[in-house]
C-alpha cells in the first residue's frame, strides 16, 4: 500500500477531487496548509508597516491506495492540478505498513 501526498494550489482542489473520484478513489483526507517551495510570497502593508508573507496557503490531499492504483492516481493528479506556473505543488509517495478499518477491524488492502 502506498500513501500519496499531494500539495496543490487551493484553486485546483475541486478539479483534483472530481478527477480522483472518477477513477475510483474512494477515500481521501484534505488539509489546509501553509508553505512554500520556490514560490515567492507577497508583502502586506498595515498602517505603514510591511509584513512579508512567505508561507502561502495551499491544500494537501492524502490518499492511501493499493500499489496497483498508484500510477493512475499520480497521472490523474498531475493532469488536474497542473497550471504550468511555479507554485503548482508536489506529490510525495511513501510506503504504508498497515491500514485498519475502525468500524470492523478489517485489515490490508480491503480496508482502503
Amino acid at each position: 500500500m502506498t500513501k500519496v501526498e499531494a500539495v496543490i494550489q487551493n484553486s485546483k482542489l475541486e478539479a483534483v477531487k472530481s478527477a480522483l473520484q472518477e477513477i475510483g478513489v474512494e477515500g481521501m483526507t484534505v488539509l489546509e496548509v501553509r508553505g512554500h517551495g520556490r514560490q515567492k510570497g507577497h508583502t502586506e502593508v498595515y498602517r505603514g508597516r510591511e509584513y512579508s508573507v512567505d508561507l502561502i496557503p495551499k491544500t494537501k490531499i492524502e490518499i492511501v491506495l493499493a500499489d496497483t492504483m498508484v500510477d493512475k492516481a499520480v497521472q490523474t493528479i498531475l493532469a488536474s492540478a497542473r497550471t504550468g506556473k511555479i507554485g503548482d505543488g508536489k506529490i510525495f509517495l511513501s510506503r504504508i505498513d498497515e491500514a485498519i478499518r475502525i468500524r470492523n477491524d478489517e485489515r490490508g488492502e480491503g480496508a482502503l
Partner: protein
Amino acid sequence: MSNRNRPITWWFVILLIVAFAQCVCAQSSTAASPSSDTATRLAKLEQQVADAKGSADNAWMLVSSALVLMMTGPGLALFYCGLVRKKNVLATMMQSFALMAVVTVLWALFSYSFSFGAGNSFFGGFQNLFLRGVGATPDPDYAATIPVQTFMVYQLMFAIITPGLIAGAFAERMKFSAMLLFTAIWSILVYDPMAHMVWGKGGLLNASLGGRFPTLDFAGGTVVHVTSGVSALVCALYLGKRVGYPKEPMPPHSVVLSFIGACLLWVGWFGFNAGSALAAGSLATSAFVATHFGAAAAAVGWAGAEWIRNGKPSVLGGISGAVAGLVAITPAAGFVQPMPALLIGLIAGVFCYWMVAVVKTKLGYDDSLDAFGVHGAGGTLGAILTGVFAVSAVNPIFKDAHGNALPSGLIEGNAHQLLNQFVGIAIAWALAIVGTLVILKFVDVTIGLRVSEEEEVQGLDLSQHGEEGYYWEASA
C-alpha cells in the same frame, strides 16, 4: 388553574380595577375645567411649547447619549480588537467594556461632581456627590431645555470612552488589574479636571462661561483626544515595547472586525459631536454635517496618501483615515462651516497617516494601536485648526457687552483665539503627561503594570481572563 392560584388572581384583578379607576378619575378631574381667560390659556400654551421644545431636545440628547455609549461598546472594542493578535482579542474588548462599568460607577458617586460641579477654575467640587441635585430640572448654565440628569448621563458616555482610547497604547501587554486601577485614577485625576476646565462652571478654559483662556472645544478635542492620546504616548514609552516588536510580524488578526468598529464609531460620532450642541436645533445640524464631512475627507486623504506611497489604498487605511478626521473635527464641529470641515478632514487624514506610517516607525515607540498618532496628534491638529476656522455665523460663542457676536477664529479676524487654543492644548498635554506618569508609577509600584513575558506570549485572553476568543475546534 390550580386552587392555589385563584386568590392571587383575584387580588390582581382587584388591583387592576383600582388602578384603572384612579386613572379615569385623574383624567376626568383635569378634562372638565372650564376655559378661563386668554392670559391663562396663553400661559398654558407657552408652557406647552416650551415642553415640546424641551421634549425634542431631550429626545435627541438621550439618543446622542446612546450613540456615544455605542462608540465604546462595541465601536471602539471592535475597532481595537481587530487590530491585535487573535490571542488578545477578548482582553482588548474587555478593556473597553470594563470602563463602561467602572467609569459609570465612579461618575455616579463623585466624578460628575468633580467635572461639572460649580467649583473653581480647575475642579468641580463636592456639591453633586452621589448626584445630589441632579434631577429633572434643567441647569441653565449647561443646557436650559433638558433635565440636568440627561446632561449628566450624556457627559458620562464621554468619560467612559476617553480612557478607553488610551488602551490603544498598552494593548497586548498590560495587566487587567493594573489597567482597571490606572484608568480609574486617570479618570479622576486627568479627565475630570480637564472636563471641568473646558466645560465646567468656572472652568479656566471654558469659552461659553467666561473662562480666563477660552478654548474652543466643541465636543472634546482637548478633553478627550489630546489627553488620552498624549497619555497613550506616555504609557507606550513607560511600559516599553511588546515582546518581539518590531521584528516579529504582528498584523491585525481581523480587519473585518476593525471595519465594523470603525463604521460604528463614525455613526456614533454624530451623537458625540452633534449631541454636544445639547439641543436639537440648527447648531446640532451644523455639527452633524461638519462631522460627516470631516470623516469623509479624511478617509480620502489617508487612503489617497497610501495609494500614492504604497501603490494600493488599504481598507485599514480608509477606516483609520475616517477616524482621524472624526478626531480632528471633534473640537471644531460646532464652530466651522462645511467647506472648512472638509479641509480639516483632508489635512487630518494626511497628517495622521504620516504620523503613524512614518514618524512612529522612525522614532520606534510601540503605540500598538496608534492612540497617539490618531488621537493625540489628530486632536492637537484639530484644536489648532478650530482656532483658524471658527466663525461666529455658525456659533456666536463670543459676545460683546450688548450681546452682539464677536469674531471667533482667525479667518474671521480673531487671531488671538489661536493663542487661547494653544493654552488649552498645552494644559491638556501637561496634565496628561504629568498625571499619567504619576499614576503609572503608583500602579507599577503597588501592583505592577505589565504581564510577565510568559503571559504575554501565551496571550492575555488566556492569562488574564481564562478564555479563548474563537473556539472553532469545539466538537459539534
